[in-house]
């Protein structure tokens, strides 16, 4: 398997007047192989989401490099970045707020296609196609975000990410805001996409059981650093780090 996404010594420091600089992401290096699902766990404030934003270039690293298929993408801008977003897409925690409230779901899903100059009829066809892939009726294209349930909206968000046929999908707590029954459905959908489209995933989640179920490998983040890395079973069954142990002990059964 070839390496699709690679982070080398990624660091993000937030500086604020009057307080000490905060190292949100501290010297993180890892590789994501093609077709692999990499889980990232850790509590709030551990740097999970900042890392996701760095990987999608929604924020710039203070230092370190990011490579996609061997190409340095750390300083991509404009057109280069737009091209990159054809390959890397993201699904956010709160689906409703990730859509424009005044525009239909179909509009939101088709936006990236419009930006690439696709024709109107083709866009409509593609939107219907991805909605069906995400397990929604094509008629949902004409609904507004507030007219659908949280689970349906998250499916639409997944459809939006799939529209451009990406190779890497970054899910930042994509199921955390959903009920357990809906969470299960969304996980089944992601599993299906993994198998059918060979997508690579970065799966950010604080639910260890989900990570164990879905991921090939997992990174444990604590205070911006990787404290442990391995297969989910290795880490959950014989954690080396104190923090990882605490995380596992906190899970209710």
């Amino acid at each position: 398997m070839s390496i699709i996404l690679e982070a080398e010594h990624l660091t993000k420091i937030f500086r604020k007047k009057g307080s000490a600089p905060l190292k949100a992401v501290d010297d993180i290096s890892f590789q994501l192989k093609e077709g692999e699902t990499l889980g990232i766990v850790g509590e709030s404030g551990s740097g999970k989401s900042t890392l996701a934003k760095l990987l999608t270039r929604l924020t710039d690293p203070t230092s370190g490099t990011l490579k996609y298929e061997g190409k340095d993408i750390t300083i991509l801008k404009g057109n280069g970045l737009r091209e990159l977003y054809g390959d890397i897409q993201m699904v956010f925690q709160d689906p409703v707020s990730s859509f424009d409230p005044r525009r239909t779901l179909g509009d939101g899903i088709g936006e990236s296609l419009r930006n690439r100059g696709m024709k109107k009829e083709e866009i409509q066809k593609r939107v219907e196609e991805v909605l069906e892939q995400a397990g929604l009726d094509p008629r949902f294209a004409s609904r507004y975000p507030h007219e659908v349930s949280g689970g349906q909206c998250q499916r639409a968000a997944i459809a939006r990410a799939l529209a451009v046929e990406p190779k890497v999908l970054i899910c930042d707590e994509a199921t955390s805001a959903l009920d357990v029954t809906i969470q299960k459905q969304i996980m089944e959908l992601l599993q299906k996409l993994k198998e059918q489209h060979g997508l690579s995933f970065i799966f950010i989640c604080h639910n260890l059981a989900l990570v164990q179920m879905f991921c090939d490998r997992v990174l444990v983040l604590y205070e911006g650093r990787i404290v442990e890395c391995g297969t989910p079973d290795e880490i959950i069954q014989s954690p080396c780090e104190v923090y990882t142990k605490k995380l596992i002990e906190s899970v209710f059964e």
Partner: protein
Amino acid sequence: MCEEILKYDSVEVSFGEKVVVSDVSFSLRQGEILGLVGESGSGKSTLIKAAMGLLGTNGMVTKGDILYKGQNILDISEKEKRRIRGAQIGMIFQDAGASLCPIRTIGEQICESMRAHRKISKSEAKSHAMELFEKLHFKDGKRVWDSYPFELSGGMNQRAGIAIAMLMNPPILFADEPTSALDVTVQRQVINEMLHLRELFGTSIIIVTHDLGVVKVMADTVLVLKDGKKVEYGKAEEVLNDPQDAYTQKLLSAVPVLRRSVNT
């Protein structure tokens, strides 16, 4: 665990014309922890808001009775309700940070809530609060007293929220998704705190949650709600280990379980 302290008798709640909860009955004994579970929109929060009289202008209990120590709390005046809210039934919310006033310190808010129920000086309120903070093993109670909500972490805010709810030592505590917004490690701490409350004060607790793990750890009895209707009600062990209703089974099977050892 003997005296029945709160009783819902065939309660129906409507918002306008729409019935959102129908025919729900259960009772809560002293020291009992009841887990109220179901998906979003199943009417969990509505049920406890009904007893607090917090349904807003549009919502009301259209059928049935809610009895607190034998007294129907739906029939009493707003003034009498105010005497029950806080003093008899405490409540903690999902987002503790948001349920506190952002521009007043925790200490000021504690004084305010205590003064709503009895005449008490600031220093008396403070010493009373510090005593409670200590019982709840707060590391630095004085800092919490002087802090604004934004200066505390989410977990610390929630613990402060629990302390504020417990200041009047109410026999009943309603907890509406108290751990959903917190990290797993902090969740565990907040849950332990509530169990500790019961030990200390014999508080009866109704915990509203969609997290069946939390229910398993805490609850004595469980009520499963779906679309405003009761689907199952019974002892926690029985409902969780041997669910009778298809919906409860579905709910339980949807929970991902952590495999801790190689064999299981």
